[in-house]
């Protein structure tokens, strides 16, 4: 009866329905059904997104913002439509506050090099946290080398939560910027970003939120958060790779110098002087990833059609189901037990390196990530070189969580003393 119960579980039925939107989920790996649990690395794409890219290339491929011809007009309309969709998705005040970039990494680099480099000087401080992805560390280190500013780090407690008391103490008159992740890619921790922003704003310090891992798993309202910048990638939101978004408050974006020079970001060019285009075009030099942006617009529609209420409730139920099953495996330790978590299970198994876990799980058709997850300072904090990480998305089911746990038992079997 247990299996029957599970099959009939409402959540799984819903997820089974959503699964049919994703062609890749029919794939078999090593002769077994694919159990894709590497969603924190990248999510799979629904057919609508795949078709939107193909339709652009097949039917109206043209450059945007230039041509007078019909195809260019259609491409421009689709491109700008996507901007409006993203604006509504994150509830920005204006679609001009949505800058299309290559991904979260480029968005953060843009803020570091444009906003940061023009405003920071020696002795200034930037606050990051111990759980940042390398892409929210290295751009700031580069900025520090250029300006003489320095980094201050909010530590993480044993559960994998930020120590807010220490954050408050780190904020001082030298603080110029706070850059923290909304959700930890390695632990799943959902950070109290609203309080983080509020505390920084009390001192007039702007805040950048790295939303790469949050965007598909928690509702984001940039006006409610009152963050100054919000960065995310399309490919972790069921959209294409190579495109992402920088949201910035209009006043900040307008005051920032251009990031890259080129076409589309200018109003007029002569050899003596160039005047720049308005925001957001000032930051979109060169022909953008048009197909990617259109695909992102469709991905946003897709997630919108499911709605965050259903999506979050499903992923939370799955996390609650899988956590104790995994924690029950002898010798297994889950890294990251924050009270507020998205569907990420990072773990280590006594006597087995995460890489070997990854290989054996792959043999069972179960795709997870093994490694440091581009968070080496965080791994050091927990005294591990790497972890194995299973991360859920809306299309994962309890049966897949069972497959994960069964595969982990198989790892133990292979490595039994």
């Amino acid at each position: 009866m247990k299996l029957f119960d599970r099959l009939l579980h409402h959540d799984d039925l819903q997820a089974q329905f959503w699964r049919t939107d994703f062609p890749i989920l029919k794939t078999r790996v090593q002769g077994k059904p694919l159990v894709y649990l590497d969603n924190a690395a990248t999510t799979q794409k629904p057919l609508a997104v795949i078709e939107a890219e193909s339709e652009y290339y097949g039917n109206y491929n043209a450059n945007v913002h230039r041509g007078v011809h019909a195809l260019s007009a259609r491409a421009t309309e689709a491109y700008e439509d996507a901007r409006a969709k993203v604006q509504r998705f994150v509830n920005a005040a204006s679609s001009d506050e949505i800058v299309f970039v290559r991904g979260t990494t480029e968005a953060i680099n843009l803020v570091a090099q444009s906003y940061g480099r023009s405003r920071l000087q020696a002795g200034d401080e930037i606050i990051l946290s111990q759980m940042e992805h390398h892409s929210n560390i290295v751009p700031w280190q580069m900025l520090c080398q250029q300006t003489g500013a320095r980094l201050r780090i909010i530590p993480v407690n044993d559960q994998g939560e930020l120590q807010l008391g220490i954050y408050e103490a780190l904020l001082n008159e030298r603080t110029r910027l706070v850059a923290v992740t909304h959700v930890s890619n390695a632990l799943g921790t959902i950070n109290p970003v609203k309080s983080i922003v509020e505390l920084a704003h009390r001192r007039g310090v702007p805040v950048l939120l790295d939303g790469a891992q949050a965007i598909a798993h928690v509702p984001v309202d940039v006006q409610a958060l009152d963050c100054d910048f919000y960065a995310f990638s399309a490919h972790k939101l069921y959209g294409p790779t190579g495109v992402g978004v920088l949201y910035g408050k209009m006043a900040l974006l307008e005051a920032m110098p251009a990031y890259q020079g080129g076409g589309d970001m200018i109003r007029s060019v002569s050899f003596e002087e160039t005047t720049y285009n308005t925001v957001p075009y000032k930051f979109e030099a060169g022909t953008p990833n048009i197909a990617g942006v259109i695909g992102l617009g469709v991905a946003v529609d897709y997630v919108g059609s499911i709605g965050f209420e259903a999506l979050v409730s499903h992923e939370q139920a799955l996390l609650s189901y899988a956590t104790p099953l995994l924690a029950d495996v002898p010798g297994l330790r889950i890294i990251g037990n924050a009270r507020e978590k998205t569907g990420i299970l990072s773990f280590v198994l006594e006597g087995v390196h995460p890489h070997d876990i990854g290989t054996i799980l792959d043999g069972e058709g179960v795709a997870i990530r093994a490694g440091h997850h581009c968070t080496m300072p965080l791994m050091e904090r927990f005294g591990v070189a790497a972890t194995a990480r299973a991360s859920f998305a809306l299309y994962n089911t309890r049966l897949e969580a069972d497959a994960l746990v069964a595969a982990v038992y198989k790892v133990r079997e292979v490595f039994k003393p």
Partner: protein
Amino acid sequence: MTDLRELYQETILDHYRQPRNTGRLDDANRTAEGYNPLCGDKVTLYLKVEEGVIRDARFEGSGCAIATASASLMTESIKGKREDEALRLLEKIHGMVTGGGQTGDVGKLAVLAGVHEFPQRVKCATLAWHTMKAALENVGEPVTTE
């Protein structure tokens, strides 16, 4: 599972659980560090080379089963070999794990052949060997698999 059994053979697991020749070698005259940035595997290799012959070999480090077993098996097999023999063995091992998995005349090291079915794990298997080459060539910089 067949390929997995090929990969995680008993000898591999044995050398992972109880690696041979570990720890510092105080009278080493050639050392090198190897690092695989992908998975964080690290190995420090100590060699004592006299008149072109590897008299002793030890390693320190942390890594996956494949990386650890490969380092352990390597230290066993290069002891007593001339430098050029050890380097030729490296070529054979490299060919075995990147090519068709033919074991040829590598003796006990044939247990590493299963790696050829797992391209993502080749760097784990070859880390110690590249480090040996660096040690013999006395490269000061840590070698990486990238």
